[in-house]
């Protein structure tokens, strides 16, 4: 597969602060690629270096095989959907969409017809003469998308574009974006701090932390095989098992493991134990979350583990609620292969395997 965007040891420093620190990555053509991380992790700065709003302090940004380092945004064939949409308030919707074509010198008739086409594509064909202020958040979001796509960029950059929308609308836009990306075959580079969003939409995700990429891979890989404690805890939730629990459980001493709460079975002490690994403890806290119930169990050895159980009728869990009350003694059990060994050294971006571009 062709690589469209490549970072080669890219760093961005602001004085002493390393916003992006030695990041290398390759993004393949047609890929839906997400940059996921907490605020200040370097994901937005990385996106802005692709767009050309920021220039790397070190390293190279390569777009479609050509070095783009130093090129201003208007000389790059990438377009951005901004977090605040950045629609021009003094222009109507059609003028907004046609703007990119206008500044490139496309004749008025052609650019307006193409703008209308793009507007139809996002199902807002009737709204061409409105001003951005007269639109709802979701509509502005679609206009911003149409304005970027009408230029037929090779790469579309999306900077937390769904952040300002409410949950229902966000979920709807997620699936629309995904469908659109599949249809157009354009590379989407999507920045978000919302792990469910990244997991549900992306072919591949890069998890950023402190200016570096901690891990890069498919959503499934990231969830099932986290390599670091940060990734394990940032994507979903995880019990990170360290010393001395590792020894108590009879595992290889000195290693660290992640264990997802839903991979642990929880039974009353009276019931038979089924798993390969076991521990005994007392329920300290119960959070009812609708689809699941989360228990915090204090082990006899002193550590706490989180356990998540699906609330399903067929399993008869609603009946066990009587037994599993706060303070109840329980048996925990899980399979040995549910435990994922973590590297305890923080990874540098350059050490991440970057050759497996594409899902």
């Amino acid at each position, binding site marked *: 597969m062709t690589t469209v965007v490549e970072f080669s040891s890219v760093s961005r420093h602001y004085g002493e602060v390393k916003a992006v620190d030695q990041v290398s990555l390759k993004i393949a053509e047609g890929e839906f690629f997400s940059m996921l991380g907490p605020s200040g992790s370097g994901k937005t700065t990385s996106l802005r270096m692709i767009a050309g709003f920021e220039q790397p302090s070190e390293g190279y940004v390569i777009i479609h095989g050509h070095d783009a380092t130093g090129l201003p945004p208007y000389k790059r064939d990438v377009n*951005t959907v901004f977090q605040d949409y950045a629609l021009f308030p003094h222009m109507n919707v059609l003028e907004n969409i046609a*703007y*990119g074509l206008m*500044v490139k010198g496309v004749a008025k008739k052609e650019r307006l017809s193409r703008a209308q086409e793009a507007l139809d594509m996002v199902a807002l064909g009737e709204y061409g003469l409105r001003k951005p202020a007269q639109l709802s958040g979701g509509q502005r979001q679609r206009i911003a998308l149409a304005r970027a796509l009408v230029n037929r960029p090779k790469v579309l950059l999306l900077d937390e574009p769904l952040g300002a929308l409410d949950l229902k609308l966000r979920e709807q836009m997620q699936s629309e974006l995904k469908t659109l990306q599949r249809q157009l075959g354009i590379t989407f580079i999507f920045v978000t701090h919302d792990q469910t969003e990244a997991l549900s939409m992306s072919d591949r995700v890069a998890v950023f932390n402190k200016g570096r990429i901690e891990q890069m891979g498919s959503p499934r890989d990231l969830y099932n095989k986290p390599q670091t404690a940060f990734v394990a805890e940032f994507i979903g939730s995880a019990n990170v098992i360290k010393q001395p629990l590792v020894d108590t459980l009879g595992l290889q001493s000195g290693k660290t493991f992640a264990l997802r709460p839903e991979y642990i079975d929880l039974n009353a002490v009276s019931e038979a134990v089924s798993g390969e690994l076991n521990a005994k403890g007392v329920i300290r806290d119960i959070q009812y979350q609708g689809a699941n119930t989360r228990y915090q169990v204090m082990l006899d050895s002193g550590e706490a583990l989180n356990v998540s159980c699906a609330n399903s009728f067929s399993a008869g869990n609603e009946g066990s609620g009587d037994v599993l009350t706060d303070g109840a003694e329980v048996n925990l059990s899980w399979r040995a292969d549910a435990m994922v060994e973590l590297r305890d050294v923080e990874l540098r971006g350059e050490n991440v395997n970057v050759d497996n571009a594409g899902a």
Partner: protein
Amino acid sequence: MHSDHSANGKASVWLKIAAWSGLIFLHFPIAIIALYAFNTEESAFSFPPPGLTTKWFAVAFGRADVLESIGLSLQVACVATVLAMTLGTMASAALYRRNFFGKESITLMLILPIALPGIITGLALLTAFKALDIHPGITTIVIGHATFCVVIVYNNVVARFRRISASLIEASMDLGADGWQTFRYIVLPNLGTAMLAGGMLAFALSFDELIVTTFTAGHEKPLPIWLLNQLTRPRDVPVTNVVAMLVMLVTTIPVFLAYLLTKGGEDVAGSGK
């Protein structure tokens, strides 16, 4: 909108009275000027005026010195406004976002001509003109006015610059517009009304400025100086009254327009959030 209406509803009656009295205090003398412009009496200020007439308007407009002063003041105000708009807009473009060494001092320097009493600015300019052997005249008036009008334009434009979201400019460049195109199609349309408003206020300020002008005018007589000279001449009172009212009207119009241009500012250049 204000939920504390009921909490101190009684106090707000007094407050209302106090607020409206304040407003009346501000406008009463101005109303008196308007009234006296129609006074039939020639050389006294008795109240109420014995009768009303419009004949002084014709007299005032028949006076060559009045017309000359009006022409001079308009001319000065126009040139000073153009200069102030150019310099003020440049300064605000340079100062609104980036931080650099000396930025605070530059801002202070822009404000100084209106923060320091006019007599200092006026006298300073006068000594400098004398030292350079420049004869006071229309040019020196314009130089003085442009200097203290810059900050008026600067204040208006810099406020608008701050409201134009940075992502608008980035979006424009992202869509392929270079710096010039971005300025032409995005920045200027969003800035235009603020520049115009600043220009209007600068015009109004220049048109009736007296304190600095006294020092820089030499033998020229712009309208405020003409008015000041009139105060010592009892027999010209009716003409003075008419001119005073006209000056008031001439400054009122641009100030009102400036208000209209900037009042909707919040949603003109917002980021669309």
